[in-house]
């Protein structure tokens, strides 16, 4: 089979909420002989005084990410980076980001990072759920408990003004379920679409596939309703309008998509 390479979506970056810009690399890979896509997204939150990057992307995406940050930030330095958890698509570019922006604060649950990236220990700043980061002009970033996670040191983040929750590996799924072998790896405009804009809806099968892989434990734990009920309650309390997962299109119609994700989670259970 052909050797596939991660690439930046040609239709990104784009603004998906007030102060929130979506950047993404798409990782094509083979499933049952077909090429399908998986997002490895990063998000830039820009306030009047400071900017914050959610997740860093895979190291292989650094050249384009660096160029896009230059475009978006101009002369402003990136003030904060919030890796949701320490996996390569989420932390892989940390050393390069710190090299590019020496004063950047790496915030979140930063346990283990001093062991993985000893060269950036001085930039690490532990944060706990409920901590607020003021970005200026009424924009703030709230560190949130990750209600769906794999690694225990996972956190979510919320921007109240944008109504946007960054959910790491939660709410993940594949897109373009009908992709055939002959189709090109990237079709213009699809990777950067929100769920409302997609021509084909998120499917239970795709949600189940990704949940069973990214959240492997879902194969053994039969408590999806408890988990997603708690998520929806939290979303309602906070006023979440947009969900920004690292792997998947940005979700702008939560009421339509959440039941599918939940059903996919349930379907991942095997026993």
């Amino acid at each position, binding site marked *: *089979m052909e*050797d*596939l*390479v*991660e690439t930046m979506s040609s239709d990104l970056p784009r603004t998906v909420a007030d102060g929130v810009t979506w950047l993404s690399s798409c*990782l094509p*890979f*083979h499933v049952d002989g077909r090429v399908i896509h998986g997002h490895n997204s990063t998000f830039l939150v820009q306030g009047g005084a400071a900017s914050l990057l959610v997740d860093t992307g*895979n*190291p*292989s995406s650094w050249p384009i990410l660096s160029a896009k940050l230059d475009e978006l930030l101009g002369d402003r330095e990136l003030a904060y980076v919030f890796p949701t958890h*320490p*996996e*390569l698509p989420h*932390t*892989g570019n940390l050393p390069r980001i710190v090299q590019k922006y020496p004063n950047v604060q790496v915030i979140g*649950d930063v*346990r*283990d990072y*001093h*062991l*993985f*990236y*000893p060269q950036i220990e001085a930039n690490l700043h532990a944060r706990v759920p409920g901590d607020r980061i003021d970005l200026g002009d009424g924009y703030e970033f709230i560190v949130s408990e990750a209600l769906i996670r*794999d*690694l*225990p*040191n996972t956190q979510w983040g919320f921007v109240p003004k944008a109504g946007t929750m960054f959910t790491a590996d939660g709410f993940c799924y594949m897109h373009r379920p009908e992709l055939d072998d002959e189709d090109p790896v990237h079709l213009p405009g699809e990777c950067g679409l929100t769920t409302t804009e997609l021509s084909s809806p998120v499917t239970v099968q795709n949600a189940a596939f990704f949940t069973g*892989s990214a959240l*492997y*434990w879902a*194969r*053994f*734990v*039969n*408590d999806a309703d408890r988990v997603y009920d708690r998520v929806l309650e939290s979303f309602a309390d906070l006023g979440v309008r947009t969900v920004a997962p690292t792997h998947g299109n940005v979700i702008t119609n939560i009421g339509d998509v959440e039941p599918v994700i939940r059903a996919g989670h349930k379907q991942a259970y*095997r*026993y």
Partner: protein
Amino acid sequence: MFTKLKNDELIVLGGSIPLDGRVSWVPAGATGFQPSNCYLLSEGSSRLLIDSGLAVHSSEILNDLAGLVGEGGRLSAFFTRAEMDCVSNLEPIASRFDLERLFTGGVINPFDAFEDLSREALRGRRHQIDAERSGEGDSLARAASIEIGPGRILEIEAPLLRLLMTFWGWDAATGTLFTSDTFTHGVMDRPDGARIIDSTTADTTTPEQVAGHLYAKYEWVPRATCEPLREWLSAKFQELDPEIIAPSRGCVLRGHDVVRRHLDFMLTALSSQHADLVSQAR
């Protein structure tokens, strides 16, 4: 620092980390020091490194490797997981040694993280070990094997008990099972303490400690349907009868009696009744 586990055939390298509240994979409040391990398997002039250890131990690992294989020496590498505690020394190793083959799972080629010139030179040396499955179900039985050297094979399997994609290795020649991020519960009371639990060690391990370490990372286990995991683990150990359990962190467990005892601890941690009790106590 390195320790021979079975003559020159199997050597453990790495370092130790203080359990100071900044480590996510151990129980809250854990104290002491935990070994961080990578393993060098030698067969004649052939070498296979299993995992690359923590970046914070880069100097000691690479210096030990240089002492064992020579500066610029040739070796292959196999990563049990694509997580940072397994992969974070790849770049310095690839720079300092002749990395002939790299065996990893998943679609991401780790060399794509490298700068352009070195990436192009190395990319083709990566072998994806899970490109094809040879069995059905959640455990990828015998997905691949790696020739360590002539006549010696490391068999690779994706275990049923895992959080992210993980591969265990089985080296029949030394009777060693490489269990990555499970069986990681062995800790030391000082940084230069005993890295191996065997018949010469005062083993004070308790079932609660084993469960605490397992649940620290596998926090879903207390909520899980555990019986399939218990059955798989028990059958695997019965099939292989390992003499050595070699985790990527935590003390190495050596000797059939020690292995049996610690397997029983792990099976207890995977019993739903025990999980409930420990979960309530947390």
